[in-house]
């Protein structure tokens, strides 16, 4: 049971980092609360795994401190931390049976006898591995192997947090869903802190209570899945989360209106004049931009309509700027002339990529 504090934590693989670009993980401060289910979301190479390996102790950070329940563990080796990690590729000790695999972490820590047996059986039961206990690790399916890797983490009674490094990458799609539900259930049952690294937004949003979005070694937003969707703090979050991602268009913003490609789009908040030389953009998700018959809103030209099954998404051009919009079920699009109705409350203003807070009044 632990709360994990990261204080000014940064890591660089080069000895003397000078600029921001030298950092694999730019200095950050963050608290992982006890019992939380977190997802670390970001594209490959954004520093997720570096951060994870620092928390588990496989890597010693070049800057800052890691605290478990207030105790500094920055330089403690992995073995001395009460933490478990599940890797992208399932690690199973081939020559041992499933039972021995699960007992391995306990036996390595000097535990013997009935205590080990009871714990192993309990965890095997939780993971539905009981029928396989006497089988050898070799020859099991990838999802069973990944469950064993997970089991070796869970089996230790003192574990404070379990870290997952893209654990479902090698699992068949139809089993992914099952394993993810299993993880969710385990999280509720065991009151463990779980940190789940992934580049798959569906995995992150369905697993986590809180999602930490990383981009280029920097944490760009921490929030609940609905916050990430409704109010992306950075254009990167807008792009990365949602399918298709947020529309980001260059604009001139003044007061409660944004001028995009010669057309005025109303805004839900009032903004001071933004002319500090920054790049000003407005972002709106396709879900909040609805296609309407020509003349009802901002005029656009429809280039293509994709039927995604549940919804139809139109690719449109607003004064030549490409964007995506939702097509209402009732609307039949004739020709390529149409217009766009935008929900003002869901239009966000970004300066150099970062969200600008407007005045609500």
């Amino acid at each position, binding site marked *: 049971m632990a709360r994990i504090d990261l204080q000014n934590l940064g890591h660089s693989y080069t000895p003397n980092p000078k600029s921001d670009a030298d950092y694999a993980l730019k200095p950050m401060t963050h608290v992982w609360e006890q019992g939380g289910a977190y997802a670390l979301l970001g594209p490959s190479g954004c520093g997720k795994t570096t951060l994870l*390996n620092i928390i*588990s102790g*496989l890597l010693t950070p070049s800057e800052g401190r890691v605290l478990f329940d207030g105790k500094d563990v920055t330089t403690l*080796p*992995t*073995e001395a931390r009460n*933490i*478990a*990690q599940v*890797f*992208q*590729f399932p*690690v199973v*000790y*081939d*020559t*041992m049976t499933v039972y021995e695999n699960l007992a*391995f*972490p306990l036996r*390595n*820590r000097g535990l013997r006898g009935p205590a080990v047996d009871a714990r192993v059986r309990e965890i095997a039961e939780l993971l539905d591995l009981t029928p396989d206990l006497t089988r*050898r690790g*070799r*020859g099991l399916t990838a999802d069973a192997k990944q469950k064993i*890797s997970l089991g*070796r*983490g869970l089996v230790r009674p003192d574990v404070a947090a379990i870290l997952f490094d893209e654990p479902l990458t090698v699992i068949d799609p139809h089993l992914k869903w099952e394993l993810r539900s299993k993880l969710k259930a385990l999280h509720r049952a065991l009151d463990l802190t779980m940190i789940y690294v992934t580049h798959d937004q569906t995995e992150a949003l369905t697993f986590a209570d809180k999602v930490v979005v990383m981009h280029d070694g920097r944490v760009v937003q921490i929030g609940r899945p609905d916050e990430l969707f409704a109010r992306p703090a950075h254009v990167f979050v807008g792009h990365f989360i949602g399918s298709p991602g947020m529309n980001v268009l260059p604009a001139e913003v003044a007061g409660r209106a944004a001028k995009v490609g010669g057309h005025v789009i109303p805004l839900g908040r009032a903004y001071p004049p933004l002319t500090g030389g920054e790049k000003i953009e407005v972002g709106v998700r396709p879900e909040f931009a609805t296609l309407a018959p020509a003349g009802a809103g901002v005029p656009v030209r429809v280039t293509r309509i994709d039927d995604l099954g549940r919804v139809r998404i139109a690719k449109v051009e607003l004064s030549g700027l490409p964007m995506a919009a939702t097509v209402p079920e009732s609307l039949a699009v004739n020709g390529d002339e149409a217009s766009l109705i935008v929900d003002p409350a869901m239009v966000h203003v970004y300066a150099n990529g970062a969200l600008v807070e407007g005045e609500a009044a």
Partner: protein
Amino acid sequence: MDKPINQGAWLLVLPVLLIVAFSAIVPLMTVVNYSVQDTFGNNQFFWNGIGWYQELLDPTTDLGGRFFDALWRNLLFSFLILAIEVPLGIAVALSMPRDGWRVAATLVVMALPLLIPWNVVGTIWQIFAREDIGLLGWVVNRLGIPYNYTADPLSAWVTIVVMDVWHWTSLVALLCYAGLRSIPDAFYQAARIDGASQWAIFRNIQLPKMHRVLLIAVLLRFMDSFMIYTEPFVVTGGGPGNSTTFVSIDLVKLALGQFDLGKAAALSIVYNLIILAVCWVFYTVMTRMDAQRN
């Protein structure tokens, strides 16, 4: 649909048949032919049936006694070098660097003994170990240890065993190293998280991954050492006495020294069959064990 039958297709197999016939079957049959006959020179041959084989496999005869003595020496030699080279090779592989420029440097140094022609290896050690002018032999004697491989059988054995270890441990080490390199980092990281000791890592991760290459290493080293000829021939010439006369050395003495073609041919056939049989048994046992493991 009926398959068309085209006997002409046999022609496609013909080149292989011819090559195999000329490279293996014809020479082998010549040896079989010699082994059932006796000759007194002048290219005159007399039928002897299985006579040579009976004599060879009966330890009470002169020929049989020679053969079994040499065979036991061979088995002892193979056992000794396997017992030394396999654990030593594993140890060397485990201590080799995993990354950086040192990998290339180590690999080159390790491969050097393997690139030296066998009779050159013999010559190197023949001189290196001489008690009068050889660096090793002279130093050992100056240390007060009596060592002379031309006069003392134990010295001779130590010399050829150490020479073989020097020559071939690299091969075992390189094979094991290849096995070790195929282990993903995640295994070591997971082992650290599981709190595994060095021994537990070796026992449960490294050894199982080296299992296959070790099988090959043992097989190669067994065959090579069982057929050893050049190095002991150069260093000791089979002496002192007959103490380092292995089957291959005896075979050459018999065939080219005494010109006993019939006896030598019978010995060749039996020698060949022993190696084939041992390799077959070895391979079958190992693959069975492998299958059981799954």
